[in-house]
């Protein structure tokens, strides 16, 4: 096998034309997924069984199945049902982009809500009791005491999830989207040079991961600056 370095250099700019779509997939599903995760978290810690039970089923299903299967069911499966094609969701589900966003959001939402729950559970009971002693209502205790500490506790795990979400966006290439991976697969099909092209994609994804890691690292440092100064 001959290894063609020039092909790597040639193909990276082509692959980068898909980076916009990769970013759109990442940011939209990260933001929507976080919103979904917060709703799921509030349901989960509400203590009311009719809110807790559906949340637990939902999280179990979406964490317990491969995201590729979820994407295929949403993209190829749902349109088989007549009422889905007639529903108000069809304009979103008709588009491959819409399906990818829906699948990535639902998936990451399940994971992130568990991360957030871990953060909330990690907050020291004494702090909540202190809040109660100060006469704060349950809602105020959650907003002013629990949430800020929980967010700090969640950040490292959350940054992991954003990175894995970024990698999951590559699966959108299986449903016709031309994100970086989609473009790379098309080039491979044209050049029959999988090594060179996929190594190029790898390099680009690694750089993105590095940027996300550094971003969260900076945020973690900043949010725990008071802890650091005391130590």
């Amino acid at each position, binding site marked *: 096998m001959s290894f063609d370095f020039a092909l790597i250099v040639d193909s990276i700019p082509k692959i980068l034309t898909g980076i916009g779509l990769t970013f759109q997939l990442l940011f939209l599903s990260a933001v929507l997924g976080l919103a979904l995760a917060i709703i799921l978290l509030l349901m989960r810690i509400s203590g009311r069984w009719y809110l807790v039970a559906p949340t637990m089923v939902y999280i179990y299903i979406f964490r317990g199945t491969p995201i590729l299967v979820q994407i295929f069911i949403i993209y*190829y499966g749902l*349109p*088989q049902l007549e009422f889905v*094609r007639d529903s108000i969701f069809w304009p979103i589900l*008709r*588009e*491959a982009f819409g399906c990818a966003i829906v699948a990535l959001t639902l998936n990451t939402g399940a994971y992130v809500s568990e991360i957030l729950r871990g953060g909330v559970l990690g907050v020291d009971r004494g702090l909540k009791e202190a809040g109660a002693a100060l006469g704060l209502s349950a809602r105020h205790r959650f907003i002013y005491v629990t949430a800020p500490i929980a967010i700090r506790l969640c950040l490292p795990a959350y940054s992991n999830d954003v990175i894995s979400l970024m990698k999951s966006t590559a699966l959108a290439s*299986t449903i*016709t989207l*031309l994100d970086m991976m*989609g473009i790379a*697969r*098309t080039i491979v*099909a*044209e050049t029959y040079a999988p090594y060179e092209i996929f190594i190029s994609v790898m390099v680009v994804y690694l750089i993105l991961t590095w940027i996300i890691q550094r971003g969260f690292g900076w945020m973690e440092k900043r949010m725990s600056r008071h802890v650091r100064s005391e130590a």
Partner: protein
Amino acid sequence: MKKAFTLLAAFAVLALGVPQTASAETLRVGMECTYAPFNFKNANGELDGYDVDVAKGVAEIIGADLEFVCQQWDGMIPALLANKFDLVVASMSITDSRLKKMDFSQPYRISVGRLVGKKNAGLNLFDDAGKPIAANFAGVKVGLERASTYASWFEAVLPDAEVALYDDNESLYLDLVNGRTDIIMTNPMKAYLRFLSKDDGAGFEFVSPQVDERKFFGIGVGIGLRQGNDALKGRLNGALKTLTEDGSLEKYALKYFPFAIHNEKWIPVQ
């Protein structure tokens, strides 16, 4: 007339019980025997299919006896070169790399692409001369297989078309039914066998003529033979010309497809 005479001669030979006339040659024909509907064993265990009919038709005209040899695809060309058989009538496409090793007759089946879309959609994508009308492709979503000849054709001929690329043939039909694409372009025989003749394809039809551009789709399928057999090649081409012009090729195709799969006018290539 000539055909009738040949037939008569063949019967005479059979009637007389003579195994072979002095002039009769036997041509051994290689094919996979598993590639329906082109060459396959039917329910009675007999070889059947478009390739088989073409081979029989040609043999009848050139007055040769046939002997079929079943050969796996990957060993087809080596077996031909090793003189295991004399002709390949196995739906083998004529390509430049194959022409370096072997020879081909004129095509007896063409490689074309054809668009499939919803029935009565009134898309009006092609003019009467069979050329695409670019303006009418605006807003039409097209499904194609990734890096296929059809994708290259669209890129070159209709670069502004809104194209979605799929990884396999089945997904094309699935998303066409789901309404994510309005039309797809693929091999018309595949489209007929896998989609249009099935329940899922009931509401769909071909919405274009056969697009036959050699630059993209290749020359087609020919009878393969060893190099340096120009006399035999000339006889094969003569026979194929007759089969084209007397409607036999069309008759063979209509057994399996509702359309002809050869070049309906005899236009020699090369």
